[in-house]
């Protein structure tokens, strides 16, 4: 017999060279033939047949019909054949669960095989078969394998626990596998440790609150020991796990850093990046004056630079991460500008990223070099890259004042090239330079004007028109220039139309005598011949301003503009912190939190940097679950993905996070209320329980309703219950009575009045639709224009029955804040379009800012203090609220109903100072100090916010809430 097997072996070798033939069989009746071959007595023929089956499977043919025949081949001592059968099983077992049971016996037997490779293979494959009945049988073999004498089997079994957990989490817990897995962290073999860590980390991710990865100094020590000994991949698992640990103090932090730094010299870039992540995170805890802190900073730069000599794909990942690191700690790479210079042969994605980092690193010291480079890039071929380079020159000018002049002259040189898109891009950035340095570079306007005709992109046209309008008094033929644009007014995009309207009005205010005709022309174009509501509104405003009070018009239109800031595209600090905790991962490549692109429970936990030891520097609130960017997750990245929906049949329903379903959030709101109410009852910071009575009497706040279930007081709230959306409790949010938004005259008989409310964390727009026409109205739909806070309907407008003449229907439309954002004037303006079977109607209304005050807006006192100090005094605004006859506690209770939270109260010489915090849906924090003097009905309110433009509106909310 021996010669026979020899022969087979040889033939096997010979056939190896022609494996590709399996890919070509496409005959009819192929399945039938394969069936016969699979059942052949000859081993070699069987193996050939299985190979053909696998090849068909690879190219996507359905060969599931062969299931029993393939499984029959499983009982073999030929390992290659066995592996092929296993591969087949993993693919098809799910579709043939009953048949798959046939394989169980062999698996169980293999798990007892004397050969460790076969034991491991069996347990590895079994874990990949997602059939309930098989998983039942998996438990016993897995338990044995976890304690196998051979490390190869143990490391495979460790991963198998994660597989099983993915199929049936309960089973894993019931069987006690988690404990066994934890024990493996102390295993003598480093690779077993690494796989156990990987498995535990993955399982822990789906149980955010379990203390599964119970990291303590002892386990950390074990991990650090294994780190020195295991494979490159194992090192990555361990480092990624370490990054989740929060050291107890700066000493522990330093000692971990010391043991992680050697990894920076590893050849594997992923090991290096994961080590950088651990260091960046733990560094946060080290006192800045520590010598070691400086040493560490110095150690980080070289490995980051080395990453740039890796293959281009890795360079891309590295650059995206460096972009974050540079924003967080600019000092690390400030001297390394040169390595980010673009090479001619870099792939485009590397070029664009390098350019981004160059701008971030640009400073007075290196600006000359940077500019020379950027100018070079502006002559390259790739249009996107060239545009970005031109834009970068503009950003340098804005960032480094000393270089502005040189930048402007470089831009002028580029304009001289007459390359169309270069010219347009240059004009757009020159506009920004004018805004930053007014009255400094106007001498170049003449050159810009020469290129007027070649501009065909709206952004460039709008920029040019802005420049002409802004400097109309210095351009002799400004009127001619603007007039030339006016000819094709209706073909222009909205952006250009609006800009043109404003520019001509500016021109008129500066040179009234010659331009009267022009201004009349543009006003009539804008108001009478246009159907764009934005344009019409702006037109009317100007018209009325000009006709009633030209002096006021001048003050409004020619008002001094705020300067634009240096860095416009910085990542928001809380998001940046989170992304730093995700260095090396996809989140850091996309610059989005994992929740924005990962489905389900995984990765939804927000990561935070640890607070620095012994300092109050970090102003961010430490409550992890609620705050942060999760409030308004950025839109799912893939825009083209939507088109592909069918192809991938992945769920393309609107991201669930953005449209809160009514039920759960109602509960949350209620709970929050209780919490808040109890807090104030129990004294806490406010210490106002005796005054509750007064508060109750005066203010129909949420608390009584929530605590006692008492009927709500106050007429204004009564009609809340009529409205559809909200069930149960009013939150105490003050609702303005409905006002008329759309008169019937303007909307062919449809009259809309409405108001806004926030109930249990849900924003609602309550409207009464009245039909004052003669015919029935149907097919209602609603849409919002982009607005300052991204308000958008969270569902369709539910008008179920047709609206017959003289009938009124009340509807309540839930709103989300995940819509597109555009700054409106005023900030709280909302432009709405309502459609019915007759026509589309437009109106605009203003919502109280308190609509956007979220329920978890209570800041920690410490954080409040630090934030207050941190916000520059320029951002403080002071207001007077007059004629309020409430004492401070009653006022604070009343405000709490609208999610304005009192954090602390201080009484100084008969004057109560209330410190309050508000958080907006877009995570902007507003801090306020309210001074109440007994006997004085006038309150003084100081508001501080990083976005000072909201202060005015916050003040309005205070006034509204307190007076009603």
């Amino acid at each position, binding site marked *: 017999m021996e010669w026979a097997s020899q022969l087979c072996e040889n033939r*096997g070798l010979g056939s*190896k060279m022609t*494996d*590709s033939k399996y890919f070509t069989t496409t005959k009819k009746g192929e399945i039938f033939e394969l069936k016969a071959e699979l059942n052949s007595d000859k081993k070699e023929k069987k193996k050939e047949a299985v190979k053909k089956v696998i090849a068909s499977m*690879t*190219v*996507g043919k359905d060969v599931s019909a062969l299931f029993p025949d393939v499984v029959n081949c499983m009982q073999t001592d030929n*390992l*290659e054949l066995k592996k092929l059968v296993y591969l087949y099983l993993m*693919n098809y077992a799910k579709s043939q669960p009953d048949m798959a049971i046939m394989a169980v016996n062999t698996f169980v037997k293999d798990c007892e095989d004397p050969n460790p*490779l076969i034991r491991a293979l069996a347990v590895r494959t079994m*874990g990949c078969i997602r059939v309930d009945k098989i998983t039942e049988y998996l438990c016993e073999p897995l338990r044995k394998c976890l304690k196998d004498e*051979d*490390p*190869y089997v143990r*490391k495979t079994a460790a*991963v198998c626990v*994660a597989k099983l957990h*993915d199929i049936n989490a309960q089973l894993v817990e019931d069987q006690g596998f988690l404990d066994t897995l934890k024990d493996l962290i102390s295993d003598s073999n*480093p690779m077993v440790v690494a*796989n156990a860590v990987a498995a535990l980390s*993955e399982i822990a991710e789906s149980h955010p609150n379990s203390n599964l990865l119970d990291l303590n100094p002892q386990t950390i020590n074990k991990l650090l020991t294994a780190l020195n000994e295991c*494979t490159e*991949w194992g090192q990555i698992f361990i480092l990624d796990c370490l990054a989740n640990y929060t050291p107890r103090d700066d000493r522990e932090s330093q000692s971990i850093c010391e043991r992680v730094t*050697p990894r920076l*010299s*590893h*050849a594997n870039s992923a090991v290096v*990046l994961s080590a950088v992540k651990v260091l960046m995170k733990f560094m946060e805890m080290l006192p800045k004056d520590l010598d070691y802190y400086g040493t560490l900073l110095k150690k980080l730069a070289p*490995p980051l*630079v*080395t990453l740039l*000599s890796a*293959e281009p*794909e*890795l360079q891309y*990942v590295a650059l995206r991460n460096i972009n974050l690191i540079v924003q967080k700690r600019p000092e690390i790479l400030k001297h390394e500008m*040169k*390595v980010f*210079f673009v*090479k*001619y042969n870099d792939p485009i*994605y590397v070029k664009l990223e390098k350019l981004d980092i160059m701008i971030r690193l640009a400073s007075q010291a290196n600006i000359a070099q940077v500019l020379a480079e950027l100018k070079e890039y502006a*002559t*390259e071929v790739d249009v996107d890259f060239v545009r970005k380079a031109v834009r970068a020159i503009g950003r340098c000018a804005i960032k480094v004042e000393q270089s502005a002049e040189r930048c402007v002259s470089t831009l002028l040189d580029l304009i001289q090239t007459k*390359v169309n898109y270069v010219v347009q891009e240059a004009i757009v950035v020159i506009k920004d330079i004018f805004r930053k340095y007014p009255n400094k570079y106007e001498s170049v306007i003449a050159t810009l004007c020469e290129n007027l005709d070649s501009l065909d992109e709206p952004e460039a046209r709008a920029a040019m028109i802005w420049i002409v309008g802004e400097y109309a008094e210095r351009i002799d033929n400004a009127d001619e220039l603007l007039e030339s644009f006016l000819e094709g007014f209706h073909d222009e995009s909205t952006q250009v139309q609006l800009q043109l309207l404003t520019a001509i009005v500016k021109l008129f205010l500066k040179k009234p005598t010659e331009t009267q005709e022009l201004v009349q022309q543009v006003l009539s174009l804008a108001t009478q011949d246009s159907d764009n509501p934005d344009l019409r509104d702006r037109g009317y405003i100007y018209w009325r301003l000009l006709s009633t009070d030209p002096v006021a018009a001048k003050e409004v239109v020619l008002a001094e503009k705020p300067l634009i800031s240096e860095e416009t595209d910085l990542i928001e600090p809380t998001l940046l912190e989170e992304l730093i905790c*995700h260095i*090396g991962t996809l989140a850091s490549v*996309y610059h989005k939190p994992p929740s924005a692109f*990962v*489905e389900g429970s*995984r990765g939804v936990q927000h990561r935070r940097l640890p607070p620095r030891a012994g300092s109050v520097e970090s102003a961010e609130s430490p409550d992890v679950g609620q705050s942060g960017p999760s409030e308004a997750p950025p839109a799912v990245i*893939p825009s*083209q*993905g*939507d088109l*592909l929906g069918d*192809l*991938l049949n*992945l769920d393309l329903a609107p991201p669930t996070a953005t449209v809160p379903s009514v039920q759960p959030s109602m509960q949350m709101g209620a709970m929050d209320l209780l919490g808040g109410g109890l807090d104030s009852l129990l004294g806490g910071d406010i210490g106002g329980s005796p005054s509750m009575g007064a508060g109750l009497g005066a203010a129909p706040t949420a608390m009584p309703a929530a605590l006692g279930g008492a009927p709500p007081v106050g007429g204004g709230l009564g009609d809340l219950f009529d409205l559809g959306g909200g069930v149960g409790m009013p939150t105490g949010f003050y609702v303005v009575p409905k006002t008329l938004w759309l008169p019937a005259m303007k909307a062919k008989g449809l009259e809309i009045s409405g108001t806004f409310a926030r109930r249990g964390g849900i924003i609602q727009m309550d409207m009464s639709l009245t039909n004052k026409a003669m015919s029935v109205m149907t097919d209602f739909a609603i849409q919002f224009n982009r607005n300052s806070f991204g308000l958008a309907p969270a569902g369709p407008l539910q008008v179920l029955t047709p609206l017959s003449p003289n009938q009124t229907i009340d509807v309540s439309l839930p709103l989300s804040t995940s819509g597109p954002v555009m700054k409106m004037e005023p900030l709280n303006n909302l432009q709405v379009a309502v459609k019915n079977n007759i026509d589309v109607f437009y109106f605009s209304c203003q919502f109280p800012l308190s609509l956007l005050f979220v329920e978890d807006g209570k800041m920690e006192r410490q954080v409040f203090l630090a934030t207050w100090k941190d916000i520059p005094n320029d951002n403080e605004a002071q207001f007077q609220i007059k004629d309020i006859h409430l004492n401070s506690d009653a006022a604070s209770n009343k405000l709490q109903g609208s999610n304005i939270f009192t954090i602390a109260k201080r009484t100084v010489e008969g004057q109560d100072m209330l410190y309050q915090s508000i958080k907006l849906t877009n995570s902007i924090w507003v801090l306020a100090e309210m001074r109440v003097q007994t006997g004085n009905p006038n309150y003084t309110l100081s508001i501080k916010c990083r976005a000072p433009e909201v202060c005015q509106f916050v003040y309005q909310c205070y006034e509204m809430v307190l007076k009603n």
Partner: protein
Amino acid sequence: MIGGLFIYNHKGEVLISRVYRDDIGRNAVDAFRVNVIHARQQVRSPVTNIARTSFFHVKRSNIWLAAVTKQNVNAAMVFEFLYKMCDVMTAYFGKISEENIKNNFVLIYELLDEILDFGYPQNSETGALKTFITQQGIKGQTKEEQSQITSQVTGQIGWRREGIKYRRNELFLDVLESVNLLMSPQGQVLSAHVSGRVVMKSYLSGMPECKFGMNDKIVIDKQGKGGTTDDAGKSSGKQSIAIDDCTFHQCVRLSKFDSERSISFIPPDGEYELMRYRTTKDIILPFRVIPLVREVGRTKLEVKVVIKSNFKPSLLAQKIEVRIPTPLNTSGVQVICMKGKAKYKASENAIVWKIKRMAGMKESQISAEIELLPTNDKKKWARPPISMNFEVPFAPSGLKVRYLKVFESKLNYSDHDVIKWVRYIGRSGIYETRC
């Protein structure tokens, strides 16, 4: 973790498809083909997100390798893994081509099963893999051999097996450097760096402990301070080089390097890359390119390029090639060169000037007249930089190997018995001069 791994040919047909996670469906295979392989524009990113699924891809000749995931995976690790996968395949069957992949698809599936478990990369050292993934079955093994395999795959020294024997203990060290330069037309160095590799071929018996030393400034300075008697103190200063950063093969004990800056390791058997390093200071630039481009009217361009070699006259540079880009509307070129051969290659839009050998401290010149077709294209010619290729027999960074000591206590050979070879090769990386 990685949810699936696909290999496609240039047409987008699947050659290998292995799914590790339940959240990746068969349709992901098509999504990548439609959106990336068949995409109209050039690839704008190596990471693509399609309908909440992320695809990582690398290309080798015209084969696409794509890893797919729906989770927030370690992106750097995924790319490192894809490169490693390419290395492993190359080690098994040579060039990665459609034919080779089809011929070895069973082997590839077997490898994928071993080196990626539930999407977690496992030991992927070819040395270890080759002991048990052989395509020939492993029935003949004794129990002892089996456990040796598993202990090697999972062990601390996963890259070397026990019991290696050579009649003659020998090792080869290659210091391979690529020198990169970006120079302005005026001769100002905009950026220059050397990225070097030390490649070792070891044919040593047993489990030898090795120690590698080079003229690293930090080490030399430290020794100089010690004030010992040897001439290391004398040679320090000029002779040592400042290494910006270095990375090591996983056999090197990193913590020891971190604390003592000594490079000690047990090497894998055969050829491998011991270390990579980067220097930016005091680089010897072997060639200087002096370009002169003059536009004569709208239809003619005069180009003159001088190259100067800048190293010891006794040394010879080889395989010198200067590539001078020409505008797209070039209609004819006349070239005169003093040395070597020059040709205008229309398909590459460049004049390629080749010189076989050139000694140090020499100079050579080429001049060309380029005739242009008149075009009404407004866009100016981008003037790509002039690039150079060459090979020189020294290390442009100045790196010198000081020693490589071999200790093997169990076997009876000593450091003196090992035959050692060292070779230095400096090649051009991206060596460009703007014109």
